[in-house]
């Protein structure tokens, strides 16, 4: 069934979009990731203009993170104070990112920068996940391996403006979480992602937060930052396609539920390896597009209607 997207002004098969949303939802249910970093490049592949893919991707992430944060609030695994600091940084970052996005669009380089960001980040994350899960598999076979410390005291903990984060059991400066939030906000606006894949490792390894509050707190921040990003894109550039978003969300929420129950029955380490390989595959496809000579040297960009 073909459907005409009112803002993107292209006709796409609705089942492909629902399926795409479902696939990404399945991933997010299985692996506990937002899925924004997969949905936006997949939208590029099916021919959605990049500006619309990014803005609509952010809208889709709102839907998938809302249900997650609600579940975590029930379990009391959200550090609201830390979330608030991350959010403050995130809103500034998102506003900055939307400005940068507009600048890039005028320079004609938005596609390139978005693709480069994806190649770099997907490459890094894929490699890290692959290493991590292979190590975990080895550890499972050899339980005598040494354990890690709870967290190390590093330069991050010697900065001024210290604040007590009770839920995380931390007494640290607000500067590092503000900066982490800022970076994630910029990425949300430029890449149309939630940024959980950056924030979660940063919270664990940089801020030293306990793992039990990390996912809930990052989801809390992501919900608000992507909501703000969606609004900014909609108001400044009219690039949010709600029809596209609804189809992706419908597929996504169903896929996420199936993924969650499926994930409970499968082995985590092997799943992580699968996800890592998938992330690297998407990264490889994007990188090839950048390095191989394009099919046509010329592209047409519509400046105004």
């Amino acid at each position, binding site marked *: *069934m*073909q*459907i*005409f997207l*009112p*803002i993107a*002004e*292209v*006709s796409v098969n609705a089942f492909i979009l629902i399926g795409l949303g479902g696939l990404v939802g399945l991933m997010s249910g299985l692996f506990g990731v937002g899925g924004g970093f997969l949905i936006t490049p997949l939208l590029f592949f099916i021919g959605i203009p990049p500006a619309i893919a990014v803005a609509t991707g952010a*809208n*889709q992430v*709102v*839907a*998938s*993170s*809302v*249900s997650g944060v*609600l*579940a975590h609030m029930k379990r009391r695994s959200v550090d609201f104070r830390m979330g608030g600091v991350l959010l403050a940084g995130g809103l500034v970052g998102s506003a900055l990112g939307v400005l940068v996005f507009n600048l890039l669009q005028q320079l*004609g*380089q938005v*596609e*390139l920068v978005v693709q*480069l960001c994806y190649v770099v980040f997907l490459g890094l994350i894929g490699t890290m996940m692959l290493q991590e899960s292979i190590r975990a598999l080895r550890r499972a076979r050899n339980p005598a391996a040494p354990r890690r410390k709870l967290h190390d005291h590093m330069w991050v903990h010697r900065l001024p403006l210290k604040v007590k984060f009770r839920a995380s059991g931390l007494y640290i400066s607000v500067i590092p979480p503000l900066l982490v939030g800022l970076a994630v906000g910029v990425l949300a606006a430029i890449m149309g992602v939630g940024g959980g894949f950056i924030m979660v490792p940063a919270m664990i390894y940089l801020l030293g937060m306990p793992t039990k509050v990390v996912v809930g707190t990052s989801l809390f921040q992501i919900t608000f930052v992507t*909501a703000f990003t*969606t*609004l900014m*894109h*909609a*108001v*400044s550039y*009219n690039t*949010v396609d*709600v*029809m596209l*978003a*609804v189809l992706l*969300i*419908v597929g996504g*929420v*169903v896929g*996420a*539920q199936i993924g969650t129950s499926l994930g409970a029955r499968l082995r985590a380490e092997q799943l992580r390896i699968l996800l890592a390989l998938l992330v690297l595959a998407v990264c490889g496809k994007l990188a090839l597009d*950048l*390095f*191989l*000579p*394009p099919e*046509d*040297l*010329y*592209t*047409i*960009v*519509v*400046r*105004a*209607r």
Partner: protein
Amino acid sequence: MRRLALILALALAPAALAQDEAFPLYPDPGLPRAPAPENVTPPEAEQPAEQVVVGLSSDSVAITASFDGSEILIYGAIRRETPIPDTPLHVIVTVEAPSQALTIWRKARRAGIWVNTERVDVGAVPSYYAVASTGPLDQILDPAWDARYRISLPQAMRAFEGALEVRDTVPFTEALLRLREAEGRFLLDESGVHLAEETLFRADIALPATLVEGEYKTRIFLVREGQVIDVHRAPIMVRKIGLERWLYRLAFDQPLLYGLMSLAVAVLAGWGASAAFRKLRRA
């Protein structure tokens, strides 16, 4: 019944002529218009020997949610007071969509990756342009007449070039033609018009799924010995309707409201789905 329709069409013809003044014959209003050739649609006084009487399958195209391209049928008859001349008659039909401002980018390899490096900005290019005819344009149409009316694709394109930053723009405009043809946005069908008995003609013109809203200008040319002997113009309105129209207008007229609505949809869907599944699991 058919005779009645023909009489009606004839009665309507003068009204259609007056309406033709509403949009210029040449696509680019910025260029000076060449004076109208003397033997074509002359003012009141003298009627050409042969005239087009046209019907359209519809004078509007509606873009609905399930819109997947469309086809318009342009049909008509040739009215003449004198016997049919010996020379072959040809009919050319063009359909032109509203124009957009474009940038054409050329990529080059920089530090191993392919980057947009050179650009040509074009002020106005029709988002869709179709030409259908009864024969190969280079055989049936005199280039001078083509240039005057800007009928063929390269001629139509020439009218749209604006101020340029790159010295050699030819490869850029060629690329524009090539890419647009590949997308089905520029069409050339040199056997797309069927002419019967030198009197009745019909043309089916395919509209792509990626349509821009607005007034599409249709022109029908009668050609004998390479010369245009009559031209008739008719507008076709292309509009989004229903939900498509509502969403599009909301997104551009009330962007804040539209953004909030998109968020509300997302939040409700996210929350609703998890609530629904929780119930399902309990049941």
